């Protein structure tokens, strides 16, 4: 339990920037990177996670095109490097990336991007909501786990006093960040402020009042959350995000994912002590008219790819500090369904991007997709436990010793996809 303490550190005024009069408040960091001496001298390692909610079709994103069973089970959705079959990007003679991932391909060739295929959960549920819950709690057989695995990972990091250690760029705090460690959920950094339009005096009084009231409320959730908000506000008071512009030439897609990653990049550049960042991307539940080269899946995947590519380019000077990990709750049926889409399946694929990654490789132990090899005769079996990937990434990148302990009940070994495993 975190002991309750008074909010009143520097008084109500500290919560308010001077010029919040209509429009969007800018952010001026009280002292950019106050914890560090000299800019960049003590940069934190940052793990960025993207959850692809809705179960991404791993077989279409990174297609085992050399497998004849795939071609026959999904004739309307099959793609290959051949000109007439979508001209996907051949990675290694066996797997090919969907053309929508073109902007990520250079990272694969220069060895920073790894693909892990056949990934999933040992729990066979095909419910989105259960599977997401298990993947975020990190305990695939226990619904009663209160905390999320990312929150537990933050708990293993050296002490630090930034309220910005764990931030989710989502409207609600995701399950993976539930727990004892302070975590922020902010849908939009630009609106993260206490505002009373046009009346600074009134604003000051309101801020003081809210501090007092939330300090004494008997509702623990309201109390704890308000404390975290006020702490974060104090650190980010008076700011100007314009001091941290986009790297020249970078254009993010104007989509929820693009905007979230842009804000994560800003927080990294601001050096506010960010160590774990989370965001999500929707629209992967492609039961209907999934499309191939064009269509719903291709559009979504292009947004995914272009957003990450822009994020990476924007980070330029910070790339050594950042690793990006993607995840999705499960994959989709090998065969196409009756409506030009795919139904809920088992294993999918994920990506890991970073300078610490042993990339340029598809890590996988998949078997041929013949019917006798499929789970329940229909789905790609899980041959790599998602915890083997997550533990490898946090163990290495965040220097957490015995990362498997983040996943109670897990005894597998990490996938050797990081440089200093």
């Amino acid at each position, binding site marked *: 339990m975190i002991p309750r303490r008074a909010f009143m550190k520097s008084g109500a005024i500290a919560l308010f920037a001077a010029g919040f009069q209509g429009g969007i408040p800018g952010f001026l960091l009280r002292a950019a990177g106050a914890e560090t001496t000299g800019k960049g001298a003590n940069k934190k390692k940052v793990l960025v996670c993207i959850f692809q909610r809705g179960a991404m079709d791993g077989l279409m994103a990174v297609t085992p095109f050399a497998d004849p069973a795939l071609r026959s089970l999904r004739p309307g959705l099959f793609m290959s490097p051949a000109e007439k079959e979508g001209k996907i990007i051949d990675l290694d003679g066996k797997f090919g990336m969907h053309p929508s991932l073109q902007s990520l391909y250079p990272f694969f060739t220069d060895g920073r991007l790894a693909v892990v295929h056949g990934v999933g959960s040992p729990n066979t549920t095909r419910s989105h909501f259960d599977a997401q819950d298990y993947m975020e709690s990190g305990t695939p057989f226990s619904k009663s786990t209160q905390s999320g695995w990312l929150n537990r990972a933050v708990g293993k990091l050296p002490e630090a006093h930034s309220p910005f250690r764990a931030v989710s760029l989502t*409207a609600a705090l995701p399950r993976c960040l539930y727990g004892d460690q302070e975590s922020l959920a902010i849908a939009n950094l630009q609106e993260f402020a206490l505002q009373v339009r046009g009346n600074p005096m009134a604003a000051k009084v309101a801020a003081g009042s809210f501090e007092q009231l939330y300090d004494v409320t008997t509702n623990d959730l*309201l109390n704890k959350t308000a404390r975290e*908000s006020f702490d974060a506000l104090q650190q980010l008071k008076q700011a100007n995000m314009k001091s941290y512009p986009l790297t020249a030439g970078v254009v993010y897609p104007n989509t929820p994912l693009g905007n979230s990653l842009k804000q994560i990049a800003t927080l990294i550049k601001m050096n506010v002590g960010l160590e774990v960042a989370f965001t999500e991307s929707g629209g992967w539940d492609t039961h209907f008219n999934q499309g191939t080269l064009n269509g719903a899946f291709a559009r979504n995947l292009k947004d995914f790819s272009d957003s990450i590519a822009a994020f990476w380019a924007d980070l330029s000077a910070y790339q050594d500090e950042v690793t990006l990990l993607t995840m999705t709750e499960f994959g989709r049926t090998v065969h196409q369904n009756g409506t030009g889409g795919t139904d809920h399946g088992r294993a999918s694929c994920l990506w890991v991007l970073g300078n610490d990654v042993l990339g340029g490789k598809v890590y996988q132990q998949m078997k041929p997709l013949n019917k006798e090899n499929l789970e329940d005769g229909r789905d790609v079996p899980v041959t790599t436990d998602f915890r083997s990937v997550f533990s490898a990434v946090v163990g290495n990148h965040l220097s957490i010793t015995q990362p498997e302990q983040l996943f109670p009940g897990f005894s597998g070994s990490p996938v050797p996809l990081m440089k200093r495993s």
Partner: protein
Amino acid sequence: MRKSFRVPVGIVGLLALIFWAFTPPSTDPVKESIKMPYKKMGLTKEQAAAHLLSRFTMGATPQQVNQVLNKGLENWFAEQLNGQLPEDDLLRRLPEANYPALKMSNEAIVAHYANAAQALRLAVKNQLVSRDSLQLLSKPEYRAQLQQLMKQQGLEPLQELNRQLINQKIIRAAYSPNQLQEVLTDFWFNHFNVSLSKGASQQFVLTYERDAIRPYVMGNFYELLIRTAQHPAMLEFLDNAGSVSNNNEWSRKREQSTAAKRVKQRIEKMAADTNNSQQAAMQQVLARTNMQGLNENYAREVMELHTLGVDGGYSQQDVTQVAKALTGWSVRPLSKDGPAAQLMQAAGPLANRANKDNVTINDFLFRANRHDEGEKTILGKNYPAEGGYQEGVQVLQQLAAHPATATFICKKLAIRFVKDTPTSLLVDQMAATFLKTEGNIRAVLVTMVNHPDFWEPAALREKVKSPFELAISAIRATGAEVMQPFQINNWITKMGQRLYYYAAPTGFPDRANFWINTGSLLNRMNFGMAFATGKIPGVKLDVSALNNHHEPASAEEALQVYSQLLLPQRDQAENIRRLTNLLNESGLEEKIQQAASKQTPPPVTDDGEEMAIYKKQSARRNAVANGNMDAMPGNTGMLQQVTGIIIGSPEFQRR
């Protein structure tokens, strides 16, 4: 039911008479069954009334606690369970001129509010763009031309339909006298969630709430299940409209018929005709027509989310079998000149012959020639071959009557109305009523309020309001007049709840920690201040009238009076003590007043383009509504400040 005993003859009549002597015919059996054990749980009548209001309304209005006390708690609750209070005032707030869609059929809506695909077709048909240059429509000048074109054709954009949907929800929640009906409409819509985020269901969400949810929220659970299952919004949202099978007699015949082949050729020719403005759309429909298989999406969610619950004991096998039982459950063509209607016409008499076993109920269409005729086993029950339309109905009946459904639904109700973690004792008792009454929702709610758990002091104020509930309760508590509901919607969105856009079929989670996080909590405080200080356009609020224009003599008195008005029956002594010093700072009141008079706030314009049309219509009313806000005499500034702080305070977030 008792009315059938009207003619007392012989012994039966005598018995009936004796029976009647104890329960006179004029009494309401529902009301008779309400026995609220609040005294036993240590609550005063006043506290119990406040608790009832906090759970079964969108928030108490001023003096409503007294009204409930005068009426009697049981009477008030029975009245709410009946949901028959006159709504004249409410309907005046939803005039047909501003809300024409509220009375339209799906067919009329499809013909009037164009979705993206319809707008595209219109643009191509009128040669604004060609099919190869659709991307031009992202340019402002082309958009303007398209809008002009739509206007000429008497069409409006879909956003206008969505505006009416969202605004009516806010108006009803804030002003309906039948509050429980609104609370339950919100609950059941969320339970059977559909979303504006999915293109195919967008045009049907308004009628879904109106026709499939609202009339049945206090009736029988099965009724909700079947109405939602057969509404176009759900059929499209969870893809069942496209789930088909060739395992039937007609499909087998078609395989061999030369006439069928000719029709097929004719249709394919139509779809290949580049002179047909609907060619692209026709190809899509054709592709869908030629699709030959199951889509498990609805079948899975109807068990996981609507009835049994994820731990309700069904298997992947059951999912597939339910999907098969529901093949052919689809939507009749609603657009007269749409691609589906064109294809139907092209198929001609051949289609009609196959259609003799079709079933049409409103806009639901059972397509016999797309149904799987095979034998099925679902949750251990056998369904013989050739069950037709009735087979799907029986499956839904089986699911509605399943004990796992009773437990799952009752637990969800208990979470909504009692606390986030209800005891199994309470849930079991509610579930027993559910099974005994075959899913009578009124009876289940009565069992709930008759249970001590509902009145447990620890359960009071234990729920955290959703952003929607917070905004509506602020309107109700202050008696505010809302002229522009969409402005309220913008704030609800900012606080983390985009009404009607939750994309997952689960609906919004009903848990405090989903709603409360760093970003959203600050916006709740910001909302309180903006709302009370008159900074939300189209919302008129007279804080001084709340207290009948009696001006409190001091900041402390203002806090006391307004806390009691806005948060009846809650102990606020500690909060008031803490705030008094702050507000008593010398000259503060004057400074606030000065600051307010110096600066006229810029209008809030962050309402997005959805509001563009509406803004014009209401610009004038808006000016009237806001005009005298800054000119209020006396210490209105201080009262607004106090009201805003109370609305943004932790206590006001709880219900």
